[in-house]
């Protein structure tokens, strides 16, 4: 499992991990990076092959006030987590 920071997108590759690692891991990282996320300085990108996580992660981060975008790639899914649009407009 590695993460890299490039162009303000923090990427986590958590493919192949035990359930429910994807959701727990994401919640922890979103919490850790909440200030930068809320200020729009960064976005988090999760790479996962867990089909369940494509539903549970967006559901959880939406309830925490973040926007999300899920996209299928070659054999896995990318879930982008970013600050809410309404918050951007307010800023």
């Amino acid at each position: 499992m590695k993460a890299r920071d490039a162009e303000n997108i923090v990427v986590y590759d958590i493919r192949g991990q035990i359930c429910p690692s994807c959701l727990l891991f994401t919640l922890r990282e979103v919490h850790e990076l909440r200030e930068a996320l809320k200020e729009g300085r960064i976005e988090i990108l999760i790479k996962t092959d867990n089909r369940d996580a494509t539903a549970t992660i967006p559901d959880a981060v939406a309830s925490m006030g973040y926007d999300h975008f899920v996209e299928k790639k070659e054999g896995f899914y990318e879930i982008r987590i970013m600050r809410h649009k309404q918050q951007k407009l307010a800023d």
Partner: protein
Amino acid sequence: MTPAILFIIIVNLALGLVAGAIMYRSDFCVAGMFRDLFLFRKTVMLRTLLLLVVASMVLFELMRRIGLLPLYPFPLLGSPSLGNIAGGVIFGIGMVLAGGCVVGTLYKMGGGSMISATAFAGLIIGSGLYAEMHPWWTAVSKKFSFLQGHITLPQALGCDPILLLLPVTGLAAYLFLRWHAQRRWEVASPAEGYIQPWKAALYLAILGTLSYTLIGMPFGITNAYAKAASYLTNIPVPMHVSQVAFYNTVPLKYTAPVSQVELHGGPGPFFDAIAYIQFPLIAGIVLGAMIAALRIGEFRVYFRVPARQYVSALAGGIILALGSRMTPGCNIWHLFGGVPILSMQSLLFLIGIIPGSYIGSRLLVTLVLSMRPEVSA
């Protein structure tokens, strides 16, 4: 091989293929249903499990009433014992640590999961370990058994099953309609080819009913894990296997309903009824999931997983196997098959699996998923 045995093999393989594909597409993880209740207070998947149980209850009773289930209760079930609860607790711990139950491990492995492949190895190792403790555990379980000679709750109460099934299904129907009105059945998932879990529950209830009608039993696979362990142990130490009491038991003895063939089977290293009922079902579930994953381009194998998770999967698989043999039976056997006919063993297993899942969830979060990820800039 006789046509009757070939029929049994083909039916189980076909049922397994369809079940594996459905489970993969809907991510129908029973371990996750219990685990997520404790970790995330999430109940949507548990609702679908209840739907599956109640749908099976209705279908089994319907088939029994029209005379298509001559084996009622089905073979391999026995009188209740407090050992069923103990087995359920151990099973619950194991399935959460393994990242899936005995069937969840199969469909996830079919999708390419190395964690589940590790848990699969653990299941075979654990089944082999249980063989060594079988005489001791049988004595303990017998000591705590009760209502000898009675398998189901209606049998113990001496009443027609419908007297108990009607209020249960009636209450469930009320809840189902309420959840429907509250739109609590649908899971919003962007996963490609996703099958809504409530639909998967109904499909699996139909497949379980087909298995019960055509083979004489609903889905069950854990004896096959024990048989795989005996085959593997038999390679280096055949003398030992021949002396282990567990491998000489023949718990399965019945006449198959459609083919009318006499079937005998046990965990020993022989090509008997356990082998041609359960091995094709296992192969079918793995292949069905693999085909489903390949068709949408999702079959991938990832090895780079934290070592701690591999250890958890292996240990979980071993614990899961011990629980399944101690109960005896797995969650699919008991929840998809036994609970719908109100088998007392299955109801006790259900009582055990709940605290087991809670303990497993705490262990998983504390010991396995507590590490921070390796981060490189």
